[in-house]
């Protein structure tokens, strides 16, 4: 029976734990470590990033060592080990997108947000970074925003401005 230690700082909600249970059920008995990536995605979607406390608690839940979680979380680029902006704009910076202007879009986002790659805007709303090929090369330039990883294709400077304005508006109304 899998369980969660009670006295840690992060408290996973019952709804989240139920989702963990659904994931673990996909694998054979004693192979629950396979659930690690899906569970880290769920935790990051809930908290925005993966704190050491959260990773420790995942380790305890899956009955594996904390180092096994750290080494996975640090290997894959989708997991944030530091807090980021509420919206992380991830722009594809690989060849095919660059052929159709991705570098100009990156420059525009940097100027518009006023922060360098990886930094967080003063209002805590935005971060941006270049990412490697996101498999949408024919529709470039492309950016994606987690946790749902919504794609925005055929970007122009105007459409990026509109997107940023929309996200600001959305945050204001939440």
């Amino acid at each position, binding site marked *: 029976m899998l369980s969660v230690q009670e006295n840690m700082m992060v408290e996973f909600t019952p709804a989240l734990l139920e989702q963990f249970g659904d994931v673990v059920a996909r694998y054979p008995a004693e192979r629950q470590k*396979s659930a690690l990536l899906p569970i880290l995605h769920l935790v990051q979607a809930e908290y925005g990033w993966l704190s050491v406390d959260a990773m420790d608690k995942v380790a305890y839940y899956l009955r594996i060592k904390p180092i096994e979680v750290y*080494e996975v979380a640090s290997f*894959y680029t989708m997991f944030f080990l530091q807090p980021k902006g509420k919206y992380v704009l991830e722009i594809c*910076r690989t*060849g095919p997108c660059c*052929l159709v202007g991705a570098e100009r879009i*990156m420059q525009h986002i940097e100027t518009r947000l006023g922060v360098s790659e990886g930094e967080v805007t003063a209002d805590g709303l935005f971060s941006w970074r270049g990412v490697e090929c996101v498999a949408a090369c024919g*529709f470039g330039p492309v950016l*994606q925003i987690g946790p749902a990883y919504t*794609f925005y294709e055929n970007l122009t400077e105007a459409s990026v401005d509109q997107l940023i304005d929309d996200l600001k508006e959305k945050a204001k109304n939440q």
Partner: protein
Amino acid sequence: MARKLLLTHIDVPGIETFDVYRKQGGYRAVEKALKTMTPDDVVEEVKKSGLRGRGGAGFPTGMKWSFLAKPEGVPRYLVCNGDESEPGTFKDRFLMTKIPHALVEGMIVSSYALGAHTSYIYIRGEMMPQIRIVERAIAEAKAAGFLGKNILGSGYDLEIYVQPGGGAYICGEETALLESLEGKRGNPRIKPPFPAVAGLYGCPTVVNNVESIAATVPIINDGAEEYAKIGIERSTGTKLISASGNLVRPGVYEIELGLPVEEFIYSDEYCGGIANGKRLKAMVAGGSSVPILPNNLATKTAKGEARLMTYESLADGGFVTGTAMGSGGFIAFDEDQCIVRNTLNFTRFYHHESCGQCSPCREGTGWMEKVLHKIEYGRADVADIDLLWDIQRKIDGNTICPLGDASAWPVASAIRHFRDEFEWHILHPEEAQQRNFGLAHYADPLTPVV
């Protein structure tokens, strides 16, 4: 119009739902296989079709299936590789978005053939919308009795689950994918043993690409002979080609293998020519890892024959004057593009995505990036081109998995065909430094990765 097998019903409204897909003849292959064929019959049919793996390596799918070990009392697994991350390749994302049931149906047919009762579809984590779409398709198929216990009363049980990746190109390599599916870092395993003998959880496993699995549906529906009639030589059937770069109409096209490259680029049925009235400078046929070809070798072989979209014709001339079908990621470069800059971009990609397990790849990809950075910005000398050539040779063939080779081939082919451009950067340092593609500076490889 070319014959379509995978994208036949792409324009039918609601084709992503079970009901519409079923009305268009969907899941007939499952009925046929489970009710009238033994698993070995299905394997034999796929073998006879000549289908070759659509993920990049082009290995015959039926033969791969027949290697699967079948020890008593040990489960077997089918794992679908949907970790599409090769620059230039986006066909699987398209297929999963538009016709998810083609994949689910193919998974059922293929799992039945292999005797697998639990199958996994590993989809790259960034494709969260596609993960949701495929999960919904699985749930619909299950509700209709095509998954679960005793499917269609055949006595065959099957469950399919979707596994999200974490953002690592290396997980497209089959053994790295299995490691990732087991909840570990995506470090490729040394082969042998091959997954067919010891794969997921040490059990016999087949790993197939999304498109390969979807292609089993028309093979079972229409029969291997009909499938093999399409295409030529050892390139049978249809192939999804994802076209990007400086084209009038980039996108995903289903072609009959054997189509002339020239027709694919210039005809209105496909890409419609080079964008903005410019001329083609170079092309990559099968994703960033295959050799780049200059204009004169893109549409014609070295012998002057028309270059065709087949595994054989694209590879004609080996890696000196040929390239490879790879994953079907077709990238067109117009006359204004800089090959050195693109090579730097691709090399940065491989450096970033190297898992770090083998020294030639871990150190070599970064070293190539540094040298290319120097050349791109006019801070190198001519000897650096030879150094670059030397580094890629030392990586090629010297790593556990093909990522090392994949990083070496674009560099080798760029130097082979466009050496004058590398020299231009070195001989015209001021002009090279003044070029601005949008970013004031292209991140120096010594800058920490964010």
